[in-house]
């Protein structure tokens, strides 16, 4: 339906890779990743690329043909999934957003995860996700209240 939000961050109790943050079984369900970094002009730059999981649990991204600035700082890599519905729309929503750094490694970009945020509607249904997000909604309403009162 709309955006999806945080289920869990930084570790947790799931089976983990050697890097300690990511469930490789869940990650392997995604077909490709979207690498995003802040480019020299200050805009986000995103590119889609395939990835593989090495036997050591390393995330290796196929190197896209883009400026090399992505290796200079922190990147975000979104793994996202939806299934189209024949009559319109989509379902089976899940994503995993990994922040970290990338470095060149044997023709790939090796991702070193530092932080993870993920959501799977089969684990946390959307209505429960909305309920969990009420504090953020309340905070936003309070932040704009002066302009409404004015």
């Amino acid at each position, binding site marked *: 339906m*709309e*955006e999806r939000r945080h289920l869990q961050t930084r570790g947790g109790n799931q089976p983990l890779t050697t890097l300690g943050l990511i469930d490789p079984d869940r990650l392997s369900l995604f077909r490709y990743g979207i690498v995003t970094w802040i480019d020299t002009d200050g805009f986000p730059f995103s590119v889609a690329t395939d990835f593989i999981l090495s036997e050591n649990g390393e995330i290796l991204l196929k190197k896209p043909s883009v400026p090399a600035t992505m290796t200079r700082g922190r990147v975000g890599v979104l793994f996202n999934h*939806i299934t189209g519905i024949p009559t319109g729309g*989509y379902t089976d929503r899940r994503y995993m957003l990994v922040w970290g750094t990338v470095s060149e490694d044997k023709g790939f970009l090796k991702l070193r995860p530092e932080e993870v945020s993920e959501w799977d509607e089969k684990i946390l249904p959307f209505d429960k996700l909305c309920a969990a997000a009420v504090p*953020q909604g309340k905070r*936003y*309403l309070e*932040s704009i209240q002066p302009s409404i009162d004015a």
Partner: protein
Amino acid sequence: MKAPTWVQSVFDRYLICEFTSIDNGKPVTFPLLFFYDNNPPRFAVTSSILFSRKIEHMKKNPKVSLLFSNPEGSGVEKHVVLVQGIAKCDDSDLDHGWERYLPMWRKKEPYIDGFLAARDQFAWFWKRIVVEIEPKKILAWKNGDTSKPAEAINL
């Protein structure tokens, strides 16, 4: 905008984009439903107040990007298009401002009226901020082959 047909079809038919805002220098990317108007070329997303952290990011830094990489459910072949632009957030009418996008929303998600019927039950979900994005730069990878250089699209 002078875009090839295959780029235009991505904007017209893809259901979602991968939307990035910037949080203190950190890119934050989420899949979002988007809306597109060709004249003039403008992209829009709406956000519930429940998921409004990205709005807070954009109020501090309006530079955003939309990547179109997922043709699922669109009937379009896979292409990848990146739009970088400036976001303008409008939260002046949380209850009704977003409703002008309902016809486009309905086309993408025909079941949305079922959720709307339960509007009272999900009242805060339907308090929504409108974000309009003025594109500044567009890059496109035909057939989604990002191992090749992107094609720059003239705005």
